[in-house]
């Protein structure tokens, strides 16, 4: 009983301090947001540029863009956009320069992962922009929408050589401190 009272007291203090501090902030967070109407999380990531599936498909067909897969190597190996290179966000410090070294900075890079709430592609495109790739753009929910449009993919078994090519070197590459 005493413990329950203490828990409620802690929660009360936390609510008081949290709401109070939020009110004092210049960029205070509203109490309620319609997050579901904004599945891409643009309330936070509104400074990140994205690309539509139609535009991505057009660039793919005209061979005007490089595709980078931000998912894990295992997921990538099971299937990915045809010709896409794997640059998993979790290993970006080790692998980024291996993968992007041969891509000129003025080229269009399209990053993707999977799921409407997956922001790895956004993080990756923003990271690339900080490295000077100003035309990096994220294809939100990329793998799913790419398949829904029946666009070309590489499936498991066709990718081993490609993955080995991109993983055999190691280079330093620091993440930017801010997104």
């Amino acid at each position, binding site marked *: 009983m005493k413990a329950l009272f203490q828990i409620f007291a802690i*929660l009360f203090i*936390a609510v008081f*301090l949290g709401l109070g501090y*939020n009110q004092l902030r210049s960029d205070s967070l509203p109490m309620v*947001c319609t997050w579901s109407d904004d599945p891409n999380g643009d*309330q936070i990531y509104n400074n990140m540029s994205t690309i539509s599936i139609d535009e991505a498909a057009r660039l793919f067909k005209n061979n005007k863009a490089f595709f980078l897969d931000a998912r894990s190597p295992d997921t990538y190996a099971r299937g990915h956009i045809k010709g896409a290179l794997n640059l998993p966000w979790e290993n970006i410090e080790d692998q980024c320069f291996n993968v992007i070294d041969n891509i000129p900075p003025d080229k269009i890079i399209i990053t993707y992962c999977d799921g409407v709430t*997956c*922001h790895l592609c956004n993080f990756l495109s923003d990271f690339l922009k900080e490295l000077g790739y100003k035309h990096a753009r994220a294809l939100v929910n990329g793998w799913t929408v790419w398949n829904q449009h029946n666009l070309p993919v590489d499936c498991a078994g066709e990718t081993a050589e490609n993955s080995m090519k991109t993983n055999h070197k190691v280079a330093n590459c620091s*993440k930017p401190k801010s997104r």
Partner: protein
Amino acid sequence: MLKTEKQINFHLILSIVVRFILGGIFIYAGIPKILDPASFAGVVFSYQLLPDMLINIVAIVLPWIEVIVGGFIIIGIWMPGTVLLYNLLLLSFISALVFNTARGLDISCGCFSTESDDVINISTILRDVGFLSMSMYLLFAVFRKKTVQNR
């Protein structure tokens, strides 16, 4: 069976060390989220567990709960409630991680920062289970009232 003085001293020292570790973890985890509640709200949303109306409130209040609980554990204030709440929070976090890992969501953990470099996976779950084992030891110690000084 009576415990020897050596055993009591061992548990007393161990519980103090555990208190500092657990308290430090929650303070370290809470401060970045307090400083950037908008990004943390994005992390909470990405877990897809809460309705819209609760996301921002959780993002605003939860980091303060972490910091207060962490501070209280270190100082030794309201130990029964504090340690019980610590365990409940960890169980909630682990449940959320297991649930989202099982359904294959490729999202940021948001455990110690609002950055995206800590993607949820089995290692993040095991890490939290390790913390839970320490906090359960502390819970046991507190409710036995033998090894931890309440204040």
